[in-house]
């Protein structure tokens, strides 16, 4: 398959954005693209092993997503990593601010990544932000 480099920055903790980012990551990765995901700000706590019980919605779509049998966004990110070999990195700054360690995060995440390295990687990639 033709390959593109795709970098996805996820900073929102709302259901709609996490869902869309997970869809892009998973479908992008299983379609032969080289996908890197950078999780920061409000997105990161959804990837704790013990995540918040509630995922806030931005609007009606978020409520619908929660009610319908859509693939859960965490499952989509996991499939991106496991089926498509996407690299999903927590932001090292967000981890420092939240005082979390790699062991506190779901196992399919890669090593913490700083913005400098991410920007170097993203220089020749499509960049999507959520």
């Amino acid at each position, binding site marked *: 398959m033709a390959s593109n480099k795709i970098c996805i920055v996820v900073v929102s903790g709302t259901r709609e954005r996490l869902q869309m980012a997970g869809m892009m990551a998973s479908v992008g990765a299983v379609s*032969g693209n080289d996908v890197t995901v950078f999780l920061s700000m409000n997105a990161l706590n959804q990837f704790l092993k013990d995540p918040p019980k509630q995922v806030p919605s931005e609007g009606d779509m978020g409520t619908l997503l929660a009610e319908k049998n859509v693939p859960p966004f965490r499952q989509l990110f996991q499939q991106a990593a496991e*089926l498509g070999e996407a690299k999903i990195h927590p932001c090292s700054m967000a981890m420092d601010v939240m005082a979390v360690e790699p062991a506190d995060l779901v196992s399919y995440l890669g090593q913490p990544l700083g913005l400098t390295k991410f920007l170097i990687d993203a220089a020749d990639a499509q960049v999507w932000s959520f």
Partner: protein
Amino acid sequence: MAEKIVIDARGSFCPGPLMELIAKLKSAQVGDELEVLSSDKGSATDIPEWIAKAGHQIVESREERGIWHITVRKMK
């Protein structure tokens, strides 16, 4: 001997049926056929697109009472 594997993804939404198919394709043998059952209209167009890009083969795609039956052969 090629097998036929049925993936019942009815009730799921995009990209659920596609991801379930890809997960099963990974462990299938070349020549095996996989039939996805999906009630999601988007998946009925997305799955053939992915299959063409990935170099596998669509054997059959039909709708029956709101359920798409998409049969795929693993080619490599």
